[in-house]
């Protein structure tokens, strides 16, 4: 089982690399370099603040875009091009295929985020003339971004398991956007009444809580991230992603592949 799963994951990763997905790193570097003259115009504290905001937001945004644009084709492309026929005619269980695809895309996102983080930390080091102890919080923010990728990848895979790439992209981007404002949804649910409260509460807990994974503003202001939040976010992400991926498997197990 492990061998089959890792083979599918590695092949997914290899496809992303050979399709030059990691070329986005070049754009990321350009973004950081291009914003350097802007930073030099302003005071040293604001310079770092902007760099952290731009750098971490870019890592998150680039990753989410890759997760969605690769994720929407993970299953549908294999069906459309009939490559799936030669996979499922082998001793590969359908859940192994889904899990392998998930791991492969996560591997791509991890490598991408790791390389971006290295570039980003170098930029921080140059701007701040070295690294400080509180800069470790920047890595926590990156960790949360990776957790965000896990959730978005699982959702995209779920949509990809039953709908067309365009529909999957629309659904994934919508849920990502709503999830980013999930705290507002929860606040609204708390203040609502009757049936509206019920619906708002259901929606608030169904959509991914991506707001709590975003600590960019916090770390940009050198505010620490508590261990409890790290634990909560980790557990939440693992459970939410597992539930969504299980949903994708359930749909895919029953699907007739035309």
């Amino acid at each position, binding site marked *: 089982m492990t*061998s*089959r799963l890792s*083979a*599918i994951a590695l*092949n997914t990763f*290899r*496809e992303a690399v*050979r*399709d030059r997905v990691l070329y986005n790193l070049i754009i990321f570097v350009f973004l950081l370099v291009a914003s350097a003259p802007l930073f030099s115009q302003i005071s040293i504290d604001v310079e770092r603040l902007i760099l952290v905001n731009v750098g971490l937001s870019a890592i998150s945004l680039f990753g989410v875009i890759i997760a969605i644009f690769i994720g929407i084709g993970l299953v549908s492309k294999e069906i459309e*091009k*009939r*490559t*799936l*026929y*030669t*996979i*499922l*005619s*082998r*001793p*590969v*269980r359908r859940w192994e295929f889904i899990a392998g695809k998930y791991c492969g895309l996560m591997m791509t996102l991890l490598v991408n985020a790791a390389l971006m983080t290295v570039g980003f930390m170098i930029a921080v080091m140059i701007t701040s003339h070295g690294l400080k102890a509180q800069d470790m919080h920047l890595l926590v923010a990156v960790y949360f971004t990776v957790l965000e990728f896990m959730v978005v990848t699982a959702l995209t895979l779920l949509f990809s398991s039953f709908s067309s790439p365009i529909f999957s992209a629309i659904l994934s981007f919508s849920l990502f956007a709503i999830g980013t404002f999930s705290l507002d949804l929860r606040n609204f649910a708390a203040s609502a009444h009757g049936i509206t409260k019920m619906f708002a509460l259901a929606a608030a807990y169904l959509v991914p809580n991506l707001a709590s994974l975003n600590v960019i503003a916090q770390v940009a202001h050198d505010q620490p991230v508590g261990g409890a939040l790290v634990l909560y976010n980790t557990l939440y992400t693992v459970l939410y992603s597992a539930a969504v991926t299980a949903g994708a498997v359930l749909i895919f197990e*029953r699907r*007739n*592949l*035309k």
Partner: protein
Amino acid sequence: MHAIEIQDLSKDYAVGFWKKTLRPALKGLSLTVESGETFGFLGPNGAGKTTTLKLLMGIIFPTAGSATVLGKSVHDPEVKKRIGFLPEQPYFYDYLSAPELLSYYAQLSGVPPAGRKERINSLLERVGLGDVGNKQLRKFSKGMLQRVGIAQAIVHEPEVVFLDEPMSGLDPLGRHEIREMIQGLKDAGKTIFFSTHILSDAEALCDRVAVIHKGELRGVGVVNDLRAATGGTSEVIWQNAQVLTAVSSLVMEPHVSADTVRVTVSRENLDPLLEKLRQQSATLISVTPLHGTLEDYFLSKTSEPEKEGAAV
């Protein structure tokens, strides 16, 4: 135990915007294939051949009926280790090279890492791709891709090989090469189930064939028997041209050369003709049964009307 056993297999596809209309693609198909047999599954486009193969591969689920391969359910992973499949007009991961693709499929099929590379190299040699190196599949011709397709289907040395239209879209040379490869599999004792609408290929390779049309099985049997059943005419040659007038109502296409007569006669008129020739003291030279072609059989079966009540 049959290598393949299909019982009352049916598949309906839901069509239309609301998916409320059912379109039957396969109607109660039953057939068996024996171990070591090369079995041709013939039918025009849209007959239900690919649907049958997808059902046998567990890619789609039947509406009714069942199928077993090597005595077990087609969904059993143990069975899938022992079968190989080449889909129709296959597309492979074009960013991979042929050795990478085969290595990937070998891993998925449970081929142990030890000796995997050697097996792949020897297989590539066998299918005539020993010199492709690390060229990506996107640079391969259709014929080369089909050879890769055959290679991926047998990389784990399966006992049963399923081929869906393996010669489709190939030029005569490509078709010949694939035919040779299938012949090689046959010689190696593999059970081969292949669908095709190219009858000459089936005629050349198959021990038995089945004809499917509009989702229904129209006939199944040994190729020679089917051809004989379709032909049913004989060529008769005798000496004594004067007798021809007496038997003219029984024969077709008479040709007279000096005193020798050559005619074609239907199965039912053969005995009366021979009787008359004896009575008229003609000298019988030869009686040769004329076999029909598989095409004759195919055309006769695909022109038969649908069975009543067969449609869902």
